């Protein structure tokens, strides 16, 4: 992977100046490269990972939902997946191998909201054969970022 992408994946807010310095290219070259990646959809979005558990306010409920579906002729899973991922409650949607087909990450403001989404929107879909909902209890690590307090480096301040 291009070093520019590697650095951005770690820190999307790095300035073009610093980025250019790190990859030893001109600011213009870096800007152009980024534009190209954005255009091609290689850079899909810039977002912030928020550790919502640390917020004082109430945090949304997250559920992982396994969905078993009947694939359709010609289009396989794509159509049914689309019907499902278009719901704004669905934050992520993956097609998996194994005992079920689609894995969804669904967010709602409380358990009832998620439960209603499953019983009123998801389960009634004709191609959906069944669902299993797992409510998330604690986030330890997300997208490579550890959310719980980790040990700090315990170096001395000065050594040879």
């Amino acid at each position: 992977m291009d070093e520019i992408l590697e650095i951005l994946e770690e820190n999307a807010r790095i300035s073009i100046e610093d980025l250019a310095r790190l990859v030893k290219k001109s600011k213009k070259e870096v800007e152009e490269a980024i534009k190209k990646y954005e255009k091609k959809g290689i850079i899909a979005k810039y977002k912030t990972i928020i550790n919502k558990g640390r917020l004082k306010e109430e945090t949304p409920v997250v559920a992982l939902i396994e969905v078993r579906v009947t694939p359709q002729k010609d289009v396989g899973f794509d159509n049914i997946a689309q019907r499902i991922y278009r719901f704004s409650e669905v934050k992520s949607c993956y097609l998996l191998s194994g005992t079920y087909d689609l894995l969804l990450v669904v967010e709602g403001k409380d358990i009832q909201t998620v439960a209603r989404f499953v019983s009123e929107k998801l389960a009634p879909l004709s191609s959906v054969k069944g669902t299993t909902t797992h409510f998330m209890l604690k986030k330890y690590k997300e997208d490579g970022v550890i959310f719980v307090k980790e040990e700090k480096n315990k170096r001395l301040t000065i050594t040879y």
Partner: protein
Amino acid sequence: MISKRVEKIPPSGIREFFDLVLSKPNIISLGVGEPDFIAPWRVRERAITALEEGFTSYTSNKGLKILRRTIASYLKKKYGLSYNPENEILITVGVSQGLDLALRTIIDPQDKVVVVSPHYVAYPALVELNLGKVVFLETTSQEGFKVNSKELHRILKKEKPKAIILNYPSNPTGVTYSKEELKKIWSVLSKEDVVVISDEIYGEIVYREPHIPLASLKGAKSKVILLNGFSKGWAMTGFRIGYACGPKKIIEGMTKIHSFNMLCAPIISQIAGDEALKCRGEVDAMVKEYRRRRDFIVKELNRIGLATVKPEGAFYCFPSLKKYKMDSLEFAKRLLLEEKVAVVPGKAFGASYQGFIRISYANSLENLKEAIIRIERFLKNCGS
């Protein structure tokens, strides 16, 4: 009450400065001689499991057979070096102990040992503790802190040393050698009756060309003691684990001393070391990060007027204060007090290097950026 030998060793001239640094909270320290990473989790997890499994005993003096074998196959695969794990490899408590063992094994009182300067602080002290005589071979910033083979030749002829200590990539300069350069040095060394102690602890951290162990050059193995370990490459300084490879006779001598004064390296560290050699990805990621920081800091130091030779390894650079005509200890003290940035005065690495400071870039890019802002402000206040 104290032996003449110990009394003779001068206390480090900058001890006071170190104490001053340690007493100051909230500083940005560019004075740390170890990685800012924590040992890879795989390594730590293996050590924990080993404890759970009850590995709390001594090992054989030479070290665990499995570790010696892993090291042998690692050196073979990576550098084409062949060492017999039975009698040419000794597991030591870091390179520091390996160095002491090597010196004890090969030098008699009054034997001369060449130390290439600027040097790691322990070299002259250990030579003197073993009653040897230190001969400094000084390198200059003009020559990129590399050994001048003519000078090397002259010193070897004149002083007839028993041994020479080489260290590359170097602490404190970060300078290392290409294969061609090493061949040139070896062609001088090979003609003399001298043992080469090659401290290659930073060998994993190189930026341009692959690291070339001196022992891998044709004909070198029989006269070279290769010292290496896990401290720097795998960020395992506190595990205190390293190894020495060399001719059977020397390794046997070293093992003899080791069996009396250390018995063996800690078993948990040995097991952790064995695991370390299996995690390449973590090391590569760290080196990549160091390289980015190196590129940044060297460019910035040169920009603000501290001429710096571009290092090709380790995580140090050794900028010159020439433009500011300041003694390095004075510079470091004032920088610490006025801007809360710690660096190590060049004096620590050799009497002739008063005009330099050592900067360790084993620190986050954010801290390095802030440090540069502060150093630049400090220099403006000093006036050039």
